[in-house]
């Protein structure tokens, strides 16, 4: 691959060297596409951020800090936001969010708990995460000048053809290694300590019950307040959750259906109609069959008996041994 660079409007293309490995004797060049971060809805951080596309799959925050801070000696990176890691925690589809107005009111306390709840998670089973090939990342610098000087330094490096080696001189003790040891770690981390698990579960369940307690309290309060017309909703008995109600409705429906079935074929007109319906169905089936046959004919040609001669001709097309089968069915992609 020649060092010739590609011009993409609006982006700075920064070539980065991948050092040769024992498996790939030739070093490779990887291309980062960099530009100032300009999201559609700007946030306070976007003015001091760079938008980088096509980060290598083993990119970590450390890599990018090192790249801009040390290798390009330009700006100090505050933090990095990778693709695929949602900025806000996704709100789990809980049973309580059906009514939005209800949600608004209980914001006061339940939401606080819920945020705490979201923060509790199980330990990760990987010591180092991977990025998707071609993914992007947002690098947020300490301030705007750091960002600008970093962009300038990248442009310069790209123009001059300065050779930057990816992850060169990165302190190896601060970064878990890739390869076999990463998988060995994964197999270990898959089974967290019993204590860690118990702690996470207990904490979660405590918080969870606190959330539901708080919510119940809020509900009570809400129902106790008379509405516009001065009515108070009366609550009694254990409140069925909506899932249970659905089940009940379904059962009821089925019962009714069964009731209706008992009277079939009672009147003559019923059996007559039934017969008619069956005839119509058969007629329809016939038309369908005809169509099906036409389809098959269109697809395979005439209905033909598979004979030896056709086998032989198809044999001629196929290679004699499976091991010689060539697979390049590009048409499928």
């Amino acid at each position, binding site marked *: 691959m020649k060092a010739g660079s590609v011009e993409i409007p609006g982006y700075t293309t920064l070539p980065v060297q991948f050092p040769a490995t024992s498996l790939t004797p030739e070093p490779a060049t990887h291309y980062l596409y960099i530009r100032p971060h300009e999201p559609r809805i700007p946030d306070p951080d976007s003015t001091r951020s760079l938008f980088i596309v096509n980060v290598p799959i083993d990119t970590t925050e450390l890599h990018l800090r090192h790249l801009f801070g040390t290798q390009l000696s330009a700006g100090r990176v505050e933090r990095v936001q990778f693709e695929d890691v949602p900025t806000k925690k996704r709100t789990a589809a809980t049973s309580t969010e059906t009514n939005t107005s209800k949600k608004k009111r209980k914001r006061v306390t339940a939401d606080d708990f819920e945020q705490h709840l979201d923060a509790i998670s199980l330990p990760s089973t990987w010591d180092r995460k991977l990025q998707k090939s071609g993914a992007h990342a947002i690098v947020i610098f300490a301030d705007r000048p750091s960002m600008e000087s970093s962009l300038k330094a990248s442009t310069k490096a790209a123009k001059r053809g300065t050779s930057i080696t990816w992850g060169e001189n990165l302190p190896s003790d601060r970064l878990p290694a890739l390869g076999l040891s990463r998988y060995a770690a994964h197999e270990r981390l898959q089974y967290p300590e019993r204590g860690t698990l118990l702690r996470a579960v207990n904490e979660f369940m405590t918080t969870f019950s606190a959330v539901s307690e708080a919510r119940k309290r809020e509900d009570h309060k809400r129902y106790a307040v008379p509405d516009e017309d001065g009515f108070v909703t009366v609550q009694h008995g254990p409140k069925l959750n909506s899932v249970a109600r659905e089940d009940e409705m379904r059962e009821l429906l089925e019962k009714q259906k069964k009731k209706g079935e008992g009277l079939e074929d009672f009147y003559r007109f019923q059996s007559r109609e039934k017969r008619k319906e069956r005839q119509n169905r058969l007629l329809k089936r016939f038309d369908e069959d005809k169509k099906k046959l036409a389809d098959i004919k269109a697809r395979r040609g005439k209905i033909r*008996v598979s004979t030896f001669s056709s086998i032989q001709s198809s044999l001629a097309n196929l290679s004699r041994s499976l091991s010689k*089968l060539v697979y390049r069915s590009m048409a499928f992609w």
Partner: protein
Amino acid sequence: MSDPSSKRRKLSPPPNGAPGYPTATDQKRSATRNKDGRSAELAMASGFYKSSFFKLQMDELLEGLRPNHASQVAKSQESLHQIKNAIETLPDKTPQSVFDAEKDLRASGLAVPWPEPRPSKEVKYSMAYAKPANINVVGSFALQTGARALELRPIDLAVTMPNSLFQEKDYVNFRYFHKRAYYMACLAAGIQDVANNLGFDVKFSTQDGDSLRPLVLLEPQAPGSSQIRILAAVDPTLFPISRTLPMKSNIRQGFSASSEIGEPTSFYNASLRADATVSLYHKSIYSASQKCESFKDACILGRTWLHQRGFRTAFQNGGFGGFEWTVLLSLLFEGGGPAGQPVLLPSYSCYQIFKATVQFLAGRDLTTPLFFNHEVSVPSGVPVVYDGRRGLNILYKMTSWSYATLRHEASTTLKMLNESREDNFDKVFILKVDEPALRFDRLITIKSFTGETLRALQEQTKLYNVLTKALGDRVNLVSIASDPVSTWSVKSKQPKKSNEGVSVGLLLNAENVGRVVDHGPAAEEKEDSTAFQAFWGEKSELRRFKDGSILESLVWSENSGDSIIHQILVYILQRHFGIVDFGFLGDDYDERLRAYGDNILAYSSPAFQSANEAFKDLETSIRTMDEVPLEVRHLAPASSLLRYTAVRPGGPADVVLQFESSSRWPDDFAAIQMTKIAFLLKIGDALEQAGATASPCRVGLENESSKIINNAYLDIPHSSGILFRLRIHHDREQTLLERSLKDRSMSPREREEAAFALFSYKKTFVQIPRLTQALRSLCTRFPLLSPTIRLTKHWFASHMFTAQINEELIELLVIRTFTQPNPWECPSSVMTGFLRTLHSLSRWDWQQEAFIVDLGGDLSPDVTEHIRTRFTAWRNIDPAMNSVALFVASDIDPEGVTWTQYEMPSKVVAGRLSSLTNAAIGLIRSKPHDLDISELFDTSLAPYDFVIHLRSKLFGKSTSAPKFKNLAESRASMGPTIKSFVCDVQSCYSQSILLFRGDDRCPVIAGLWNPQTLKPRSWNLKTAYSTAPAPGPEDQVSINRSAVINEIARLGHGLIEHIEVHDHSK
């Protein structure tokens, strides 16, 4: 409204349709009509009985197969005339001795096609030629009963030899056949010039594969025109019928050393009689075709059916071909039923005739002779349909084995025709059933076993008798086939041997095939035991058994690595025929499975059974847990090890635990997962306390990126050495997921995640346990199902499909071969099970058809219809097949995408699967008898773009078999690591790379670039792969291959030995 009953009467048609009416009643319908009087009207309403899809397809097929008589006549009329003229103008030849006659013909370059034994020099009778009494076009061409495209449809020209040439006693000692051979030679010599001018080559061939009856064959030099066969015939009254009755002896004076005087020569007699009945049968078939409108179509159907099953007129091919079918039909119009009632009625439709005839063949055992008009004495053990008026047993060319095979096929076909679930049209007519390796469980080929017809018949009969006696109830069917001598030049003598030997196909009886000890007669029964000893020789030994009986018995070795069938064959063929060298196919598949499947063959082997027992033990322990607050409802096995389908018992065995429902479960996904972990920890403690585990249980995490898919499992190292992996099934999750899918406020991404979670829930907690349950019973019902599934899995792994195709999918593909075996019987060997599965895959048009499997026997037409509707819906939703390529449904899983959704496999891989199975079937067809089966399993790495060779150190020699591999291997093996690595790479490069991997022992991973990414294109934000400037225009990019390979190398550091990159662009 009038009285409905009168209306009904009006609607009802006459039972079999009015005469002259295009009666298209198929018997299927008329059978149901008897049960339900109303369906007749319904059928009426649906368009004059043509409603069934079967009928429509049949009409279409007949349309294609009916010969275009007019054009063929137009094409060949001129040639026929000229040849006829040429024959009529041939000069007579005066009688002369054999020697002179032969010399005379040799002068014009011809060798007389003498049948064996050729006339000796001293014979008294002389050879002569005289103008034929009659020349006629006969047979399927004239009667229009042949089928286009099935076989070469020759035009038969029957030349009736004048009576003057023969003497009264010519029916004995081949005299007739010698004179006939000379006559044919004279004809061949006489028309040679005319034929050459008309564009034909003159050759000799045999009629019906019978070397006694050579014929002259005019083969067109230009393709497209028909062959013309010149047959010899004689006047029916020339030799009295009483002389050629089946039990008469007409070969005397020890002509043939083995047949002594007085022994009946039924084949010889019938051969002679066949020449005398040429015109008679022509007439009778003609009149039958005049009487019954659908007769010709029924003949075409019959021919097709026979052809697909390998039956031809020649005795080597079963002795039952189109001609015999046609004659049998014409006879069945006269009788054959109980009390001489006709089996067929002229008002039948062609389908009814076909079905009734198949029913007749399947139901009526013709080894109890069937006589028309006269009863005569007939040989026993062979089928007899004796046509008294013409003096011929029309099945004279059938042997006991070909008759057994025919009946076998007929009853299979009858079953298919009676099945209401599927129309089976393809399987009755379209599919070629006669593929030896698909049809038979074991194939034997013997080279040295052919000769001229009479001797071949005798030898094959002996072979058949010996084989059936030696194999006994280990086999259900022994079928012998060979190739008749095809054609030979008029200049050379009749060849004595065809180039292929005979091939014997065996259908095994799965229950008895592995029996180690055979019991013979008791020692006291002197006569029987002498016969037994004579047959078995030194192999038979006297043994005392537990019940005190002393029996002659045979003991075969069980663990010699040689199947018992093969041991018997080696011994018996050597003993009775002196054959040492013979081909044997079928055992290799079992061997292959042993070699790659830890030496396990049956589901009942200790490895599977110990896992089974451990599971039962675990179930008891779990049911008796006190510390867990919820009652256990069900512990379900959910792993291939527990359903006997793991190629090698290894890895953890999944089980699914369901508690009795409780209202105390939270209604929140994350909380459910946390509760599950709490339960798992509790269960682990309880099991450890109960002492059911070998080492502490561990809770493991999975699917960490999602909060709505199952997050945790419990690894239970059971005290028996099996590692179980337990997950908790909580059925509220499904309801919650379904509800959140209905929730409108969710973003598309969340909805997608919920859909995937629901998919994964159904698969893990519903479908896998269900399939496991079903397979556990199926494997007991079909003992060969488990080994066949395992071999098929091995095949898929050999072709590196492991990362792309779920093992459950493979299981379903194989099950169909067993539960819906049509057009064959249920496989009784690994070979047939495996090859038929490949065959069905090669024929599966997966873009247009759903693959429907019957697992529990509940596959009603309604369910099938429902599945088809779902399939159509999927193709409408996803016409480009981006998510679902294969659609495989069963009665317990009508949704059909459980194992195949989310590109498992993608359409590229599905396409490769089709081409590989096609190639495999092609290979089997090209080498039916001498296939080295490793060719089926070898795969080439050349077509891939790059191949990652894993470090061989990682695959430590695991040949030493610890007692319970399952536990030992799960820690030591690199399987999970490699799997994680492949997963990582595949998910990082989901847009640009497709990875292929074999099973845990496969030392390579192969990859393909997405061809789209190799093309230069302009860059945008959605380009989801690593890019580099492409050669060419400035702003074009293409995939950065060297950087990607470098990244993979870094990711797999320590795993990879080297990466081989192929450049296919050169």
